[in-house]
């Protein structure tokens, strides 16, 4: 039964294909003075491939008079009408006098309409890759970087103004908005940040232990994990995660608000965009990142301790005792003190990129990508600077 139905359907399809094979044709005949070009069949966009091929293969008659016979057309749309018009123009260009015959009334209106809109001669698009172009792009990039720098300074300046104005006008701090942003960028990030740090702590401890064991120095895993996690890994990993999570969200939010003229609406209502949208986000992030870093440190140390116990047979008590010797409060603070700066960088980059979004969806995507990439890169650069700074003051 099923087979029969399939057969029936197949037959139907074949019939439609057969009907569709009523293809357009173009033929030339005639003598030395007059030639006759006959267009047949459906001249529609659905057959544009066949039509273009037929026109390309057509042997252009060079007689004084050409009769363009359209009486056998059984379908014409804009594409067909345009191709006919183009054919006629080409024939006339070759010096023939073209007489169109057999044009039905209904097609005449379409052909007349098409004739009124003769597009200019077609020139293929070219993108030359010249030296001038490279120089132009470089120049544009430099200008762009300068503009970014100004935008960043503008936001930092406004933030200082707002913070110093808090004593006079506490309302401009927008605590509600800060709390809301804090909830989204900190509380929401806790599980994923802790899970990731736990795994990284475990991996460090396992990998370190594997190699240190060969020298019988597996006890130093505690020093390795403690110092590495507290000084560097905790804060860097958290910052990268926050850049990917909150940074991209900031850019996308501000960007889509820009696209839908919401930013302009804020302007005309007389509100400062920086004060209303940017500063609450920045403040929330500056508060969130140290908290997240601390939690990430805890999770990573827990992971390291767990693996030390299971894999290297260092019991938790011993791990904790050794940890107390290995790290001091300074070690923890070295990591934590970097966090607000990284938060500031992530927030600034994200907001500046968000404000640069223009009308298209593509631009939104591009700036969101840029925001995350730039933020992560800057986080690592700043971490390097901090490392130089701390080693020069001897911590």
């Amino acid at each position: 039964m099923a087979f029969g139905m399939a057969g029936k359907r197949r037959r139907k399809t074949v019939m439609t294909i057969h009907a569709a094979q009523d293809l357009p044709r173009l033929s030339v005949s005639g003598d030395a003075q007059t030639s006759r070009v006959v267009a047949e069949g459906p001249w529609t966009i659905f057959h544009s491939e066949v039509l273009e091929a037929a026109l390309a293969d057509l042997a252009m008659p060079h007689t004084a008079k050409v009769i363009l016979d359209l009486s056998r057309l059984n379908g014409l749309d804009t594409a067909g009408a345009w191709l006919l018009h183009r054919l006629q123009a080409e024939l006339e260009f070759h010096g023939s006098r073209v007489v169109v015959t057999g044009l039905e009334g209904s097609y005449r209106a379409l052909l007349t309409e098409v004739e009124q809109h003769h597009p200019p001669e077609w020139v293929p698009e070219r993108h030359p890759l010249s030296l001038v172009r490279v120089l132009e792009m470089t120049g544009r990039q430099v200008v762009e970087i300068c503009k970014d720098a100004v935008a960043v300074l503008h936001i930092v300046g406004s933030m200082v103004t707002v913070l110093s104005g808090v004593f006079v006008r506490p309302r401009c701090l927008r605590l509600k908005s800060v709390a809301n942003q804090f909830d989204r960028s900190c509380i929401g990030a806790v599980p994923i940040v802790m899970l990731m740090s736990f795994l990284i702590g475990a991996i460090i401890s396992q990998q370190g232990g594997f190699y240190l064991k060969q020298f019988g120095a597996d006890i130093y895993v505690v020093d390795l994990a403690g110092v590495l996690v507290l000084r560097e890994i905790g804060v860097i990993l958290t910052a990268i995660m926050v850049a990917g999570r909150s940074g991209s969200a900031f850019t996308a939010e501000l960007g889509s608000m820009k696209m839908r003229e919401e930013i302009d609406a804020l302007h005309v209502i007389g509100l400062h965009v920086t004060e209303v949208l940017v500063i609450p986000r920045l403040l929330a992030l500056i508060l969130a990142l140290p908290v997240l870093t601390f939690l990430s440190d805890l999770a990573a140390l827990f992971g390291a301790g767990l693996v030390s116990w299971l894999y290297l047979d260092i019991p938790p008590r011993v791990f904790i005792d050794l940890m107390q010797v290995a790290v001091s409060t300074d070690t923890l603070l070295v990591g934590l003190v970097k966090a607000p700066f990284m938060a500031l960088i992530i927030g600034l980059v994200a907001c500046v990129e968000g404000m640069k979004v223009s009308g298209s969806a593509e631009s939104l995507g591009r700036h969101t990508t840029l925001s995350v990439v730039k933020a992560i890169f800057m986080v690592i650069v700043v971490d390097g600077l901090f490392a130089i700074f701390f080693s020069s003051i001897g911590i």
Partner: protein
Amino acid sequence: MANPLNDPLTHAQSRSDDDVILRARGVTVGFGPVLVLKDLDLDVRKREILGFVGGSGTGKSVLMRAILGLTPRRAGDIEVFGVNLRDAGPEERLAVERRWGVLFQQGALFSSLNVRQNIQVPMREHMRMSERLMDELALLKLEMVGLPRSAAEKFPSELSGGMIKRASLARSLALDPELVFLDEPTAGLDPIGAASFDALILKLRETLGLTVYMVTHDLDSLHSICDRVAVLGEKKVLRTGTIEELMRFDNAWVQSYFNGERALRRV
């Protein structure tokens, strides 16, 4: 495949069953517990311009989206070009989709493509044709909808509201559809722009043999170009007919719509 009839005016009077290009029967659409449309019947005839009116929230856009298959329907059949969309396989559906064009209320131009590329999207995806022909046809369509050639390389964010409507119409006409759906085409246009848009739709009907399904609130459009007007209310089509017929239709909303102060002032 436009196949214009010889006399563009006879179609409005013809009542033959073969003339129906879109047939909806018993269409029911709901969101959660709320039914927006219930047992709705509708016929759109070949080469007519059907205006669609109704108060806010009566489901004009929902009906259009249900016909287009963008909103799922709970019951009912929709038959377009003789194909029942419920049983249609992917290929049949695609064949139908190539024969209709849609102008969304906000234009819905692809923001990352310029106007020329926007118009070429359907050609590029559904047809095999040379780059040259696509460029030529895109410019042709652009001019047919009354945009200057300089608009071709502009991006949607650089266009005015009226230009977006026109560019979007050009895109919906890219494959020379037989049926176009227009969702409030003249909303947000100035009266001169709206009038020229109306004239454009009339002219395209003459040259391309279009059937037009138009959701509109513009009384001028309804009076000047619509052959028939359908009134949506109480979850179904209350009445279809010419404006004169509707003016005599005894329904409070219809009366205040067509014989209200705004409607009478336009004379």
